[in-house]
């Protein structure tokens, strides 16, 4: 438990430089460490960021984006066939509804609530439990321009610049202008924001943000919002049917090519169910569990890109799938918490990235991709700390927070982090944390317009699975905002189009067959199926004993 003895040599160096770094922080680190210029940013990204490495991307051979370069692991999954057999019969239909929401995280719950509010009958299906999503895990905060010295226009500028100007401007406008409303809406549902004594919100700065506008609920911001949204969904059993442990594995269409529902798969019983819906919202979240580049991830167990797969097969375009966000500070020690998210707020409240020699080597609050690249660079230079299992990390000097903000700050503002590290014998009030970039967010995704439409009729998308809101790099606090703003919009729009929609003809998965045929034509020889539903962590030795063809429980002669 705790750090191994040999690491204390480096820890002592960190402690030795701490007093000087406290002084620097008090005067304002911008005096000593200028934020990188555009050119410097480009250079450090090119040289160090995993996205820019040769072989990080490759062209996809099939589908609406064929020929474009996307992250290699993403292509590998998209180029897999569906597990549905070619002759899969869609009848009988098991559930009929107005709106089907696929995904039970923040965006899914917002969509379900607002669709119900606007008169729709809703089914929400999810792979694990309602609320099992990356939304539950975000810690630091949600951006909203609530301070008098701020404005939605400045928020817009920060977001679009942070996204390398690749964001769709109309989406950024929606994101930033609806933020204050979302703050109010969540508050009216009972979310407890951190506040100053006079009742105004406590706001923090964040990577890439030029103003303080990060609202928070301690370091359980995501959990606080998710718990409330989930509870509220469950307060409407007459309007919203929640189907847990029932992931969607394929969209179905009607004879006019409109998306008209989905096929669900029960992972325990092996059964299939068909939902017919007049509008479908995909809110399946991220892709951390495909471990791009072999990196560990901050994401939850079910973040396997299912929604992107289903939407792509149905003909939706993807945007910016060559861009992966690595969170600069993922825990790298102890091994049990490898990849865990250490919120950016640790840095906004004073924590500093420090190398093995105790040197503060970069301004702590560059946009995430730049910050992550600098940490990778530092370890490449040999200035990282080695863990017993051969990984490298840099120190995140958290005791500074107690010194700069007063004793008791960490306990008050970071109860989750304090508790998590204490479980493994590390008290972050007196010892620095050891971190390295970890796979964190899907910057791109299924392309949407301001009403969450994709180019496939009656298919709406919202949340992390969507693309265009954040460009090629998401700023801290904009994802929590994204799923609330666009989840809501998707719900309202889904209810609206459901009223006007008539399902024409028989349900079918012709688009799946077509996709399969395109794969064959392009000579793609994939291993396995997609969506992959759950990542594979079973030990190889244990898997060797698992014989797929040997199933004593295969139903006999029905």
């Amino acid at each position: 438990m705790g750090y191994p003895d040999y690491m204390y040599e480096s820890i002592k160096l960190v402690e030795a430089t701490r007093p000087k770094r406290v002084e620097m922080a008090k005067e304002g680190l911008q005096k000593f460490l200028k934020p990188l210029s555009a050119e410097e940013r480009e250079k450090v990204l090119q040289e160090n960021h995993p996205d820019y490495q040769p072989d990080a991307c490759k062209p996809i051979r099939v589908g609406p984006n064929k020929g474009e370069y996307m992250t290699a692991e993403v292509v590998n999954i998209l180029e897999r066939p569906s597990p549905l057999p070619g002759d899969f019969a869609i009848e009988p239909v098991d559930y009929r509804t107005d709106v089907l929401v696929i995904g039970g995280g923040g965006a899914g719950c917002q969509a379900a609530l607002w669709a119900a509010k606007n008169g729709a009958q809703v089914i929400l299906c999810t792979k694990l439990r309602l609320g099992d999503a990356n939304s539950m895990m975000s810690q630091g905060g949600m951006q909203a321009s609530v301070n008098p010295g701020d404005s939605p226009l400045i928020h817009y500028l920060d977001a679009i610049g942070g996204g390398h100007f690749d964001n769709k401007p109309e989406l950024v406008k929606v994101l930033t202008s609806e933020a204050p409303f979302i703050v109010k809406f969540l508050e009216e549902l009972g979310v407890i924001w951190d506040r100053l004594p006079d009742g105004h919100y406590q706001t923090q700065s964040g990577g890439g943000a030029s103003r303080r506008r990060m609202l928070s609920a301690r370091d359980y911001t995501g959990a606080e919002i998710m718990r409330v949204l989930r509870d509220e969904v469950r307060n409407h059993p007459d309007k919203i049917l929640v189907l847990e442990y029932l992931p969607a594995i394929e969209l179905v269409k009607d004879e006019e090519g409109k998306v008209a529902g989905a096929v669900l798969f029960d992972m325990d019983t092996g059964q299939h169910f068909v939902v017919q819906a007049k509008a479908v919202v995909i809110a399946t979240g991220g892709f951390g569990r495909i471990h791009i580049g072999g990196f560990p991830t901050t994401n939850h167990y079910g973040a396997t890109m299912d929604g992107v797969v289903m939407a792509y097969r149905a003909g939706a375009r993807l945007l910016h799938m060559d861009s992966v966000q690595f969170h600069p500070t993922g825990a790298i020690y102890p091994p049990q918490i490898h990849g865990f998210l250490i919120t950016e707020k640790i840095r906004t409240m004073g924590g500093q990235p420090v190398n093995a020699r105790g040197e503060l080597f970069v301004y702590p609050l560059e946009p995430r991709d730049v910050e992550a690249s600098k940490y990778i660079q530092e370890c490449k230079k040999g200035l990282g700390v080695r863990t017993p299992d051969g990984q490298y990390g840099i120190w995140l000097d958290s005791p500074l927070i107690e010194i700069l903000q007063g004793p008791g700050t960490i306990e008050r503002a970071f109860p989750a982090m304090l508790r998590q590290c204490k479980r493994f014998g590390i008290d972050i009030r007196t010892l620095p944390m050891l971190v390295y970039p970890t796979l964190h967010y899907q910057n791109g995704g299924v392309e949407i317009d301001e009403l969450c439409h994709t180019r496939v009729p009656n298919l709406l998308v919202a949340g992390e699975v969507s693309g265009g809101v954040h460009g090629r790099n998401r700023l801290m606090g904009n994802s929590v905002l994204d799923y609330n703003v666009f989840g809501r919009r998707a719900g309202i729009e889904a209810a609206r189009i459901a009223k006007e929609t008539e399902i024409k003809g028989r349900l079918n998965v012709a688009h799946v067959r077509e996709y399969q045929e395109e794969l064959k034509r392009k000579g793609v020889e994939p291993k396995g199926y997609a969506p992959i539903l759950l990542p594979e962590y079973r030990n190889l030795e244990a898997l060797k004993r698992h014989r797929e063809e040997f199933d004593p429980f295969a139903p006999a002669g029905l």
Partner: protein
Amino acid sequence: MSGELIPIYIYSRRYFVPEGSTIISALEYIGFKLKKGVGCKEGFCGACASLYRLKDDYKLKGGLGCQTVVQPEMQIVQIPFVPAPKAIYNIEELEADPEIFVRFYPELYRCLSCNTCTKICPQELQVMDFVQAAIKGDFEQVANLSFDCIMCGLCSARCPAEITQFNLALLARRIYGKYLAKKSAHLEQRLKEVESGKFEEGYRELASLSPEELKNKYFQREINFQIT
């Protein structure tokens, strides 16, 4: 993490798993494909609640599967779900009055103050104290003490009075957040501005800039962390 294998028991069967494994990683090592009882794998979602006993120790302990490191001879079972009542309500119609507990979770008043809930909580929360705060009608105290609750359900599973601590705490927190927390005047102001269309012109202007102009505007923007 020495790489050595140590014995543990899942249900009553013995397995050997690497030292330093968590309960979840031990199950995966053994060959279980986890479809329930696992969620965020980071200690936030409460999906992996587990009960276990240690060697030569009669005490029944609770912990999160993704955070609890296995010990030799540990006996483990997962509790992926705890049946519990969840009140259905319209929060707009409620008031910050302890009457709501009488209405939605009357078993609250059966509390024996035995502290069993506190002892099993994997987040080390003062569960009994927030239950008592609810009895006293102190919503703020319930919110403060239960804030880090991940709703794993172990407290409710063990409670002799059969109270559902995590659901009534959630109701109390929502009531506090909606009715008792102070409000922000600045937010009301900003909402009015947005609604009046004050920023439409600015957005149009930004959208009309050329890529060069936009870049310049971005890199030259003022960085100012004052609130006003």
